[in-house]
């Protein structure tokens, strides 16, 4: 056993939180996921969470590879299932800070059922969904968040399906903190992650990220810089009004904390309900 505080550096250098021998990371040129990784680790540092107390669970896809780069307890699990592993881990080990890193396909498509039930249970887990609107790892197929009309390898004539608004789903399913931020607003994203991790309950954060090499090229969205700058023009820092009436993404991104409730956290509710059965609490 090591002193849990020993892993918390006094002055912040992100490399103290990285498995630097795995760098450079495997993500493409200009991929927004690296920015999200920085924001997550900066938030962890700011909250004073030691690396030993941090567990990062990720699924499959480009987002899933993030976990391996973090010098913490990392679990890279099967496609769509990180929320299930994280639920078991958090219930078994309430002392850990459990963060799930997932993607739009991982979280909303193959893992959609797990997402809505994780939101409903409201375990004290933070779920970071990196939304790049495409299946990047498998070569650029359409995803549940691909905008209508976009070209992917499986929508060669343009996407004819409407896209999901992940935050509306999470709110409707009962996540007690839901927010969205663009990677371009990195410090704001960091602050949102700080808020989600601090929040006692299920925190869902949608990160608007960029797939530059696969999605960007095919749709002629410009250079890495142009893509990240264009996030800004798609952002609408407004309140959440009306979004629930419109389950599909309204074409612009409302950012910041979009909904919040003080619903009882799952483990607390479980302990309260089962108190009479517990040996140490029987008198």
């Amino acid at each position, binding site marked *: 056993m090591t002193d849990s505080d020993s892993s918390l550096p006094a002055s912040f250098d992100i490399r103290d939180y990285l498995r630097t021998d795995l760098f450079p990371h495997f993500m493409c040129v200009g991929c927004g996921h690296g920015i999200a990784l920085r924001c997550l680790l900066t938030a962890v540092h700011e909250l004073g969470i030691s690396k030993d107390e941090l567990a990062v669970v990720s699924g499959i896809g480009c987002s899933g590879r993030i976990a391996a780069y973090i010098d913490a307890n990392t679990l890279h699990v099967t496609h769509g299932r990180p929320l299930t592993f994280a639920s078991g881990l958090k219930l078994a080990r309430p002392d850990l800070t459990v963060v799930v890193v997932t993607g739009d396909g991982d979280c909303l498509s193959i893992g959609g059922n*797990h997402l809505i039930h994780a939101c409903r249970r409201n375990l004290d887990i933070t779920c970071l969904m990196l939304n790049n609107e495409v299946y990047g790892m498998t070569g650029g197929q359409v995803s549940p968040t691909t905008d209508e009309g976009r070209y992917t390898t499986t929508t060669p004539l343009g996407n004819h399906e409407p896209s999901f608004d992940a935050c509306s789903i999470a709110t409707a399913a009962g996540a007690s903190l839901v927010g969205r931020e663009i990677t371009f607003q990195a410090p704001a994203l960091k602050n949102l992650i700080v808020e989600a991790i601090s929040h006692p309950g299920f925190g869902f954060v949608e990160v608007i990220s960029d797939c530059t090499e696969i999605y960007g090229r095919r749709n002629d969205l410009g250079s890495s810089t142009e893509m990240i700058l264009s996030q800004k023009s798609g952002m609408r820092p407004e309140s959440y009004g009306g979004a629930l009436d419109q389950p599909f993404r309204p074409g612009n991104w409302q950012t910041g904390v979009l909904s919040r409730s003080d619903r009882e956290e799952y483990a607390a509710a479980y302990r309260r309900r089962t108190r009479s059965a517990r040996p140490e609490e029987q008198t």
Partner: protein
Amino acid sequence: MASDSSSGERQNLQGNVACALGAIAAGCRFYAGYPITPSSEIAEQMAARLPKVDGVFVQMEDEIASIGAILGASVGGVKSMTATSGPGFSLMQEGLGYASQAEIPCVIIDVMRGGPSTGMPTRPSQGDVMQARWGSHGDRPVIALAPASVGEVFEQMLRAFNLSETLRTPVVVLIDEAIAHLSETIDLSSSMPTPLASRKVATGDVAGFLPYAATDDGVPAMQCPGDGYRSHMTGLTHGEDGFPTQDPATVERVMRQLLGKLDRNMEQIECFETLECDDVDVLVVAYGITARAARRAVVSARERGLRAGLLRPITLWPFPERRFRELASSANTVLIPEMNAGQLCVELERLCPHPGPVVRLNRIDGECISPRQILEQIEKLHAHD
């Protein structure tokens, strides 16, 4: 050890209840599952009993989530299990593969019912034997246990957790619906011969720690979040350091270690029972509820002067090959009664040392094979000699 089971008392228990009691006695403190006939009593029992021992029960949204949750809990250092039946077991194959690859201890109960698909939810079957062996993709170490009585369900739950913990691998307990819903009077205290085992815990320097380093018994020591090792776990093929690799030499080395760990520990894994096997003409091989019929048939056959014997594998996978070969080499015929269209018999045909006849006796109508059916078959085989 915390347990609410009334040790030392004779109790009349249903197989599924004994399963839950055995799990808690084995130290299981986390259960995640999804309701499915005929396994649901296990979940109900765990939901009521786990809070009493400071454990956690959670009903998940499906079987995929259930196995995910128990793997997460096990990574957290807590002995964990789930229970299901055929359709749910199919969904769990993905998680089972992950548990094998990442070497996460866990116990999965499959209460077998008639299949395929939704099949006959309330009728007994032994149709998941090959799914337990080959259900998940790729090559992986597989342990499956097949108890044949309520008392043995309790005992085998202890063994299942012990094997799972010491070998860092998922252990499947195949219970047929007949055993699951059978009530028998058992003595729990006399059913507790096995000392409880826990996983080997990583010690030593944090720097340079290799979570999948080779060891003498082929089982790497396991780290636990919070103990300072901060290792990485993945379903990707990984080197000793836990990180993905496609280097052929490394992959060959770690895969051989993964697949070899059962061979290295066969003494504690292998478990079978023999009856009247000293001089055998007809060797009956049977497991689960069918073995009880086979036992009665063999006893009856001996009473009639027929040289029949019974090999009852309790650990079904890996199959007790050596003992089977020995017995089969002296027998004229091998009779394999199964409540499926013929699954374990394929393995026996492969293992048989001589091209002697392996005779199948199958039933797929949702009814148990009776002693009389087996006895008739033994008599018929003797008549052919």
